[in-house]
C-alpha cells in the first residue's frame, strides 16, 4: 500500500511502525539516552522509539524538544522517520536538525491506516510512504 502526503523533511528511511493517537513531547516525554517514552500515562510509556517509523498526531510541549530530537540522532536513539497527522514547528525543527524524514497530511489518516508493527518505507523527498502490513 502506498500513501501520499506532504513532504516536510526529505530523505529515505524505513522501520517498524509505532503508532499513538496522543501528541508527543520529546522534552521530558522521551529519554534521549535510551529512546524510551517516559511520560507518565502516555499510550507509549515504556516503548522505545529507536529506529521506528514513529506515527503520532503532532508534537506538544517545550520547543527544547527540537534539540532533544537532534541529541537522540547523535546518540543513535532517534526514530528512523516521523509521520504526523499535522506537524508543527517543534517536530519539524528537530527533524531538519537531525536529518530525520518527516511527512504529514497523508491522504489517509495515518492513525487509522497504519498499525504498530507494520513495516514502513518513507520516501521523504517524494512525500510518499509504502506500507507492508504486518
Amino acid at each position, binding site marked *: 500500500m502506498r500513501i501520499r502526503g*506532504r*513532504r*516536510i*523533511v526529505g530523505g529515505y528511511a524505513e522501520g517498524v511502525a509505532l503508532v499513538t493517537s496522543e501528541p508527543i513531547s520529546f522534552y521530558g516525554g522521551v529519554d*534521549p539516552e535510551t529512546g524510551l517514552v517516559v511520560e507518565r500515562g502516555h499510550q507509549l510509556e515504556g516503548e522505545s522509539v529507536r529506529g521506528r517509523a514513529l506515527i503520532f498526531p503532532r508534537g506538544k510541549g*517545550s*520547543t*527544547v524538544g*527540537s*534539540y*532533544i530530537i*537532534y*541529541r537522540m540522532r*547523535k546518540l543513535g536513539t532517534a526514530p528512523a522517520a516521523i509521520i504526523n497527522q499535522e*506537524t*508543527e*514547528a*517543534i517536530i*519539524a*525543527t528537530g*527533524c*531538519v*536538525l537531525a536529518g530525520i524524514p*518527516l511527512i504529514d497530511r497523508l491522504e489517509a489518516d495515518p492513525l487509522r491506516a497504519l498499525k504498530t508493527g507494520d513495516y514502513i518505507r518513507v520516501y521523504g523527498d517524494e512525500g510518499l510512504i509504502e506500507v507492508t502490513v504486518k
Partner: protein
Amino acid sequence: MGPAVARAMELLVALGEVFEAERLIPIEGAHISGVSYKNLGDAGLELLEDLAELGARARVRATLNPAGMDLDLWREMGIPQDFAERQLRVVRAFDRMGVEATCTCTPYLVGHVPRRGSQVAWAESSAVAFSNSVLGARTNRESGPSALASSIAGRAPLYGYRLEENRRPMAVVEVEAELRSRLDYSALGYHIGRTLGSSVPYIRGLPRAGFDELKSLAAACATSGGIALFHVEGITPEADGFGEGDLRGLERISVEEGDLEEAASRLSGDLEDPVFCLGCPHCSLEEIREAAMLLRGRRLRRRLWVFTSRGVYGEAERRGYIDAILEAGGRVFRDTCMVVAPLREMGWREMATDSCKAAHYASSMGLGTRLISLREMVEEASH
C-alpha cells in the same frame, strides 16, 4: 552556499512548508533565544557547538537572550560550577557564530531597535510582542533554532504577522480599571492573554502607558496567551490605522479592577521567606532609578535581587544607582533573570515579584510565588 547556510535554509524551507508560507523574504535582524543551559541541556549545547564548528555565521545583526547566570558573578548567585562551565560554552558558541552576547530579553533597550515596518526574526515571546506592537517591526514568534537559522540565512518564511492582513485587530479590550503600577500592567496583560488566547487585541483606556508599562504588558500577555501583537489606542504606532469600521463586530471584553486582582491572585500564595525579584523583562534605566531612589537610606532585611542587561547596568552604575541598591543590601545581576536561572539548583523555594511572567514560570518550576509592586516590595523587604 556553505554547509551551515544550507542547513539553515533547509530549516526555514521546512518551516515555510509547515506554515504554508509562499516564499522566503530577506530580514534585517534577529534576536535569538534558547541560551540558558537550564533549558538547552547538553542536547542544545552540542547542536550550537556543532553549528559553530560547521562555520555558521550570522549575516544580519543578531542579539542574544539571557543566559542562566551572570557571566562574571555566577558564584555569587550560587550557580554550580558544572552548570557555569557549560553555560560559558554556550555563549562562546554563539560568539563564534557572530551573535552579540547581549544576554538580554530587552534588546530594544540596548540599541537593537528595528525600524517600523522592517522584517526581523525575533524569538523570546516578550520581545516579539514588544517589537511587533510597540516598535511596529514584523516578526512571528520564532523559536531559538528558527531565529538562529534566519540570522545565518538572512531570511525568514513569509507568513503570519509578517503580512499586513494578519496584523488587524481581532478583539477590543476596554480597560475600565485604573492602573497604578507596573504590576497592574502586568496583571492586565496576564488577564488579556488568558481571556483571548493568541488574538490581536486592540486595547482602549491606557492613555498614560509608557515604554516600561508596555514592556510589562507585552511580557505578560505573551506568557498567558501567546499574544504576539497588540495595539494600544493613541499609543502604539499601528493603532492609528484602525477606525471604528475595523473594530465593528469584533469580540469585546472589558477589564475591571477585580479582573486584575483575580489575575494576580492566581499567582499569589502565602510565603515565608521569598527572594524579592525585579527585572522580568530586564529592568530599564528608569526602573533601576526608581528602585535605587526607594532603597536609598534603607537597610534591607530580606534578599532583593535586580536583573538587567549589561548595557543598562553600565549607565546605572555611572549614575550611582547600582551603588544605592548594593548599599541597601540588594543585589544586581546581568545576563540572566529569574525565569532562566536554575532557581531550584540555587536553593530557591519562594519568589515575590512584580512580573506575572516571572511568577508564572517560577510557579511551574515548583516555587511558591507572590505578586507585589515595587513600592510594597521595598517596604516588606526592609522589615
